[in-house]
C-alpha cells in the first residue's frame, strides 16, 4: 500500500485495483519503482459541451394548471417548484426550466412541444 501512495492517486473509482495494474519495473536487479504514472482527468465530449438551457415562453392560451402539470410530468419537479416556474413564465414571459447537456435538453424540448408548450433550446452564453 505504501508504494501505491508514492505513485499518487489515480483519481478514479476503485483506484486500489487500478493502481495494482500500473506497470512496475520488475527487472531482476532492480527493485525500484518505475516513474509514476500520472493520470489526468479528461472530460467527456458531453461535459465539454457548453450547457444548454430549456426555456418555456409565455402563451396566453395554455392554462396555468395545465402548464404546472406539464412541468411536473416532464421534469419531475414537485408541485411548488413547477408552480414557481409557471408563474415566472406567466409574469416575466419566460422561464429557464433546465440547463445541461444538449442531448437531454433537446429531449425535454421535444416533450414540451408534445404538450404544445412554446419551448426552445438556447446555448448559455
Amino acid at each position: 500500500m505504501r508504494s501505491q501512495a508514492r505513485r499518487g492517486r489515480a483519481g478514479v473509482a476503485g483506484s486500489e485495483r487500478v493502481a495494482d495494474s500500473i506497470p512496475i519495473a520488475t527487472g531482476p536487479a532492480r527493485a525500484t519503482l518505475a516513474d509514476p504514472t500520472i493520470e489526468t482527468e479528461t472530460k467527456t465530449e458531453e461535459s465539454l459541451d457548453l450547457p444548454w438551457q430549456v426555456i418555456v415562453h409565455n402563451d396566453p392560451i395554455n392554462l396555468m394548471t395545465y402548464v404546472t402539470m406539464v412541468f411536473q410530468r416532464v421534469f419531475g419537479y414537485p408541485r411548488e417548484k413547477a408552480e414557481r416556474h409557471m408563474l415566472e413564465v406567466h409574469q416575466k414571459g419566460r422561464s429557464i426550466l433546465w440547463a445541461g447537456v444538449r442531448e437531454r435538453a433537446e429531449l425535454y424540448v421535444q416533450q414540451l412541444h408534445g404538450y404544445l408548450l412554446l419551448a426552445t433550446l438556447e446555448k448559455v452564453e
Partner: protein
Amino acid sequence: MDICRRNDELEISELDPFLAELLRQIPASTNPEESVSAEQRLFSRPAAEGEKESCAEWKLYVEPELRKLFRTATETVAADLQQLNGNERTFANRTLRIPAGHADAWLSALNQARLVIAAKYNFTDSELCDHYRSPIGSRRDLSLFQVNFYGFLQEFILREIIGCGETRAD
C-alpha cells in the same frame, strides 16, 4: 349541462344541442387548415431563428412524430364523441362519458383546438380574459366562446382526473 366524475369516467350530461355540437367540433377544430399562424403555433420552432440546422433537423425528424402524437389524441377524442351521434332525437339532451384513461388525449385535443382557433382569430389578451362576453353575435364571438368552453373542460379534466387543483396567479 352537468359535469361530474363517476368512478373511472368523466360524465357530461344534460348536454344541450348547442354544447353537444361544440364538442363534436373538437376534432375538426384541431386542423390548422390553411392558416399559417395556426400551423406555426402547433409546430413552433425549437430554437432561435438563427439556429437553422437545428430547426431543419427538427422539421425532418421531430415534427412528423409530433403530428402523429397529435393525430392519435384527436382520433381517440373523435371515437369518444361517437356517443353523441346516436339515433336519438336531434334536439334531445345527451350524455357523454369519457374514460379516465383518455384524459391525456382529451387534454391534447382540447389544447390543439384552442391554440388553432386562437391563432386563426388572433384574439387579444383582453378578449381572452373576458370570460363572460355575451351575447354571441358573430363567428368571432362564437370562436371565443369555443376557446373558453374547451378551457373549462380542460380545467375539469385536470382537477378531476389528473388531480391538479386550482393555481392562483396573484
